[in-house]
């Protein structure tokens, strides 16, 4: 009798071990992509559209983001995406750097039966990038996960000529022109607290003329050193700027303080100005 009891006990244990999978988060069809700057940090982009043949528009609405989940086609072994928008690494307005890039992905998509309740799921592995016109890509994990984590980093080369100007108080600016480029560069017509301005890399000074809403004008002249070299393999030769200073005799802002004398991307505040 004692022996039979043992057998029944273990039979119950055995039946209790029969498990069924739950139907939650079965598919791993979203590839986690993050936008980055070569030699810098995480980038920020404004995406107006992400399109894929067969699916059309992937975005529900335009968005500003540092990362995105791309839906892989479970019925194919390749999916292409076309990104449209612009890079927006700082809160400050400035010259737009358009984002018009294609990304082609290949992968192994397999279907698997899960259970009568859950049906099937699609499992993606071996993600690769056969072609792209992003400056560089890096695959961190070739197997998408659920919930989505970062699988792929999409890099752009850093912009090396944008000086980051921060105003100590808000100012309403109509236009900003660059003398060395002989024309109005920006039509702002807005209240701004900071702005990204392009330095002329072929020269060692750049002069900006600000026109306020009340037609008052201010001039900012900065001098700097330029160095041309290849720092990143994927970017070729670039001109880098450092030793930024304010040319006091030509500038008529109340105060100009140099906070960082080199150009960074992601931008750091270079000049702090009292309007």
């Amino acid at each position, binding site marked *: 009798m004692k022996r039979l009891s043992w057998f029944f006990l273990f039979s119950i*244990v*055995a039946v209790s071990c029969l498990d069924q999978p739950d139907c939650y988060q079965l598919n791993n069809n979203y590839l986690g992509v993050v936008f980055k700057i070569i030699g810098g940090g995480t980038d920020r982009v404004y995406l107006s559209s992400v399109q894929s043949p067969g699916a059309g528009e992937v975005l529900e609405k335009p968005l500003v983001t540092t990362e995105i989940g791309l839906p892989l086609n479970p019925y194919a072994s390749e999916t292409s995406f076309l990104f449209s928008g612009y890079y927006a690494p700082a809160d400050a307005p400035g010259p737009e750097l358009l984002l018009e890039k294609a990304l082609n992905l290949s992968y192994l998509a*397999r*279907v*698997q*039966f899960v259970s009568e309740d859950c*049906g099937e799921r699609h499992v993606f592995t071996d993600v690769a990038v056969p072609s792209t016109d992003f400056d560089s890509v890096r695959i961190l994990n070739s197997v998408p996960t659920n919930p989505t984590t970062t699988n792929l980093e999409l890099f752009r080369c850093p912009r090396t000529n944008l000086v980051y100007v921060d105003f100590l108080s808000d100012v309403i600016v109509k236009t900003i022109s660059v003398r060395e480029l002989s024309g109005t560069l920006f039509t702002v017509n807005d209240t701004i607290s900071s702005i990204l301005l392009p330095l002329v890399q072929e020269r060692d000074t750049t002069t900006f003329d600000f026109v306020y809403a009340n037609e008052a004008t201010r001039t900012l002249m900065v001098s700097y050193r330029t160095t041309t070299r290849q720092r990143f393999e994927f970017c070729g030769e670039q001109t880098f700027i450092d030793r930024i200073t304010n040319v006091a005799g030509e500038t008529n802002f109340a105060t100009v303080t140099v906070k960082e004398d080199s150009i960074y991307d992601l931008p750091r505040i270079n000049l702090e100005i009292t309007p």
Partner: protein
Amino acid sequence: MTLCFVSRADGQDDDKDKDTVKIKPSYMPTGVRVGTDLISFVRTPIDDTFNGWEFNADVDFYRYFLAIDYGHWERNFHSEGQADYSNTGNYWRIGADVNFLKKDPDRNMFFLGLRYARSTFTERMTVRSDDPVWGTLDQFVANQNVPAGWVELTTGLRVRIWRIFWLGYTARLKFALKMGDTPVMLPSDVPGYGRADKDSYWGFNYQLFIRIPVRKTPPLPTLK
């Protein structure tokens, strides 16, 4: 005649337990035990999704046992409006058990063991996939003669019930599953193993054996 022989041998074992003479253990096999898994036997007629059987055999070498299993699984699932899945295949296991009940006069077993298992299976699925981005697609996918292998740690009991009849159970921790390439369909179920998406899996057999003696059972060695 055989039953009488076994009974007498057991009587001798009782006497030897009281002896203080150390007897060298004999590694010559004394019998072959063959059996079947009762869970599969019962489950097949009552579970529409399962059809299977399994035979087990072991042979003793003193307290060590060579164990061999051979089985067959079929699974059939119907997921309403989504997928019809079928799987069929055979499997075998080979390994060894060590009996830790050294002095039991009936030679009952409490054992730990190790198995290497192989399976070959074919699975088919008709599926209607519905993706919110990529739409709906009807597919028929199949894997033909997929090989698989895994390792098992086993434990269990073998208890002599009456004459040559034995009952036993075997609990299995299955792990280290390896499968052949399946480029279109990821295997769902591996006969003998279970769900293919599990890194480890528990298995359980409740077994009925008959033991066929092949020679006189030697007296149990006395351990001092």
